[in-house]
């Protein structure tokens, strides 16, 4: 099963190193406008959320593309743009519900996460593991475990309270 980019935004420190390494590794240029991952911030509350392509199964960008330049890559679990076919109409940019399909005004072409052909640089550089590249099934079991722990902690607290009464 293909891996997915999993973002745990609570862990994100907001440093934006992912944006830097994404732009440099793809384009050899430092410019967050070229990054396929962007950290959205609510600085007044200390909230930072990295956003990138979800590689949707029923991808709106793929569906809307008038020249069928966008396709599913089953092996790498990604949605890819064929730049030889792409006409730069930006319909995909308009339709993406996550804002993950971007358009670079300098190169005049769309850009999106390609999971770095299986070795995502944002993951490699993120020391706090706010972005990970893991099996889709692993995400669900991790979240279940986290939720289960909350239930378990609550149960213990309830038992403690009971004991005090």
């Amino acid at each position: 099963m293909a891996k997915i980019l999993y973002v745990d935004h609570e862990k994100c420190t907001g440093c934006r190193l992912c944006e830097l390494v994404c732009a440099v590794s793809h384009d050899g240029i430092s410019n967050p406008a070229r990054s396929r991952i962007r950290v959205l911030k609510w600085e007044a509350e200390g909230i930072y959320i990295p956003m990138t392509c979800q590689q949707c199964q029923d991808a709106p960008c793929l569906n809307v593309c008038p020249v069928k330049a966008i396709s599913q890559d089953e092996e790498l679990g990604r949605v890819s743009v064929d730049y030889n076919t792409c006409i730069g109409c930006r319909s995909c940019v308009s339709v993406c519900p996550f804002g993950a399909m971007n358009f670079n005004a300098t190169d005049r072409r769309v850009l999106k996460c390609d999971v770095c052909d299986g070795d995502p640089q944002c993951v490699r550089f993120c020391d706090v593991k706010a972005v990970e590249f893991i099996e889709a099934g692993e995400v669900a079991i991790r979240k279940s475990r986290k939720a289960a722990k909350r239930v378990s902690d609550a149960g213990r607290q309830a038992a403690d309270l009971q004991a005090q009464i």
Partner: protein
Amino acid sequence: MALNRKIAYIDLTTGDIQTKAIPLEVRKKFLGGRGLDAYLLYNHTKKGCDPMGPDNALIISGGILTATCASATSRTHVMAKSPLTGMLGSANMGGFFAPELAWAGFHHLVIKGKAKNPSYIYIHNGEIEIRDAGGIWGQSVTDAQWAIRQELGDEEVKSCVCGPAGENLVRFANVMTGVKNAAGRTGMGCVMGSKNLKGVAARGTMDIEIAHPVEALEYNKSFISQITSAKVSQTQGTLGTPFIWGATNSWGGVRTRNFQYNQCEYSDDIEPERIDEICEETMGPYHMTGCFGCQVHCRAQYKIPEGPLAGRYEEGPEYTSLGAFGAETDTPRALTVLTGNHLVDQFGMDNLETGSLISWAMELYELGIITDKQTDGLDLSWGNDEAVLEMVERIAYRKGFLGDALADGGIPASKKIGKKSFDYLVQVKGMSNLHSDERATPALALNVATASRGSDHLRSRPAIDLYHLPEEVLRKIYSNPVAYDGPLSSEHTEYIGKPWQVFWQENLYMGVDCLGICKYHTVFLGVTLPTFEEWSKVLFLNTGIEMSPEEIWQVAHRCNMLERLFNLREGLQRNDLEKGDMLNHRYFDEPCRRGAVDVIGTMIDKKKFIKMVDELYGHQGLDKNGVPKPETLESLGLENEPSHLV
């Protein structure tokens, strides 16, 4: 490309804006950031200019590596003639402003003149505009930044601003970006306020080409590993800088009750672990945040847990706030520290200077030098939490006699207060010492006495001197990139070899400030972190400039000498208590009363101290009066300053 980032000269009086490229020869001589700022300041101000007048130049910059594929190039540097000291004003901050400025096309802004009405500068992809700030004037540091975003309709805009303290011309007001990143020493926010300038906003999407992108990316990976593998970085990443305060206080290196003691007792409530608990309780388990591209993430987040400001979001507190609002004023309570930290950040005021001056006033109050008459009835007894927080606000808004007097800085305030108040003021060159007590550590004492911007730990402090490293380890560190075969001592209470360490650190810190990298990514607290050799590689891979480690050292020495030249031009005299490389008499007269066995009873031996200064001057290439020798200027290529290359 990083090298095509420009300098903008902005005249607020006339509205004239000029942009200039930075010639490669200038880059090679001064690199960028603080070093090139020093050059610009020396060249674009005249001797004796009024720090709060239109002729002063407010210079805001990023380093030569800012926003390239190098680690933690977040630093914004701000320079001007200081309204606090009348000499070099210089302050450095993290956050995200300088990278945004670089993506908007600029590395250095030289702002002169005075705007007719409150204004701010907006820089967007090579374009510069002076805009009306009438609706923003008076707002707090954060409110002003969010208001600028709203007005420009762009949430990605990054700004650096002054707060109410800067507008009210408090002489130690900050320029700040984000919630708490502060260019906080020497009153750069006061200079900003004096120009009727609320701030500078930047937004950029211009490419910065990396000279060797594949190699730069890989090298950055190993550079980051070198940093994150150090235990000290990991500790900073979990406890933040308060861990430094905790460690220093444990052996007796923290000023308490102004300068009466060197250790804060009953401090459980402000120990780093306690502060961390509060951060976790109010912000959750992942409460550390970082500056641009940094994997150390030493900045904590918290909400004020109780009191009238309960629930307010804030970042920090840094160790300086623990000293300023905990130990110095003898109010070692978390709520006071967390609230005080929030207030200075909102007003935009140097926490170090604020806490130091309040504690000085408290000692004067204890001695009867000031009374209820000067405090307008405020009880400034040691440990009065409410009075400390009240004084913060009085200073920011210049309320009452004392608030107004302290807002002018220690030396002017001592002249207003009179009597023997000056004797108790712990300062160098008019800037208050930070919260650390250097009586037991000659190397650190030499550092604060000779730092170019006045008493300060971030210009030349050999902090690793406290680690008792074996001599061979010290030699390995301090003999690079230039040979040193003089003495070195592992003992932090010793005087031997310390001048060389101070000289080495001075060049190291200048180097890192020219590059635009954070000091926590070099040998400040961590012994194994990158220095000149690594910088030589990272500079080449990102910009294509080939410079050996020795050449970068030479640049740093040159830029430090420029700062020296500026200070000499503005009246520095070696032994002058107000404008010299001299410590307050208490360092030489009052022994440490608390702390570890090898600390208690110690103080600085004045004769040995003078000898250390002589020795340091020798390393720097200065004569006995602290003036550069002609051959030093010639070897550094500074014999024709000001040379007006840019």
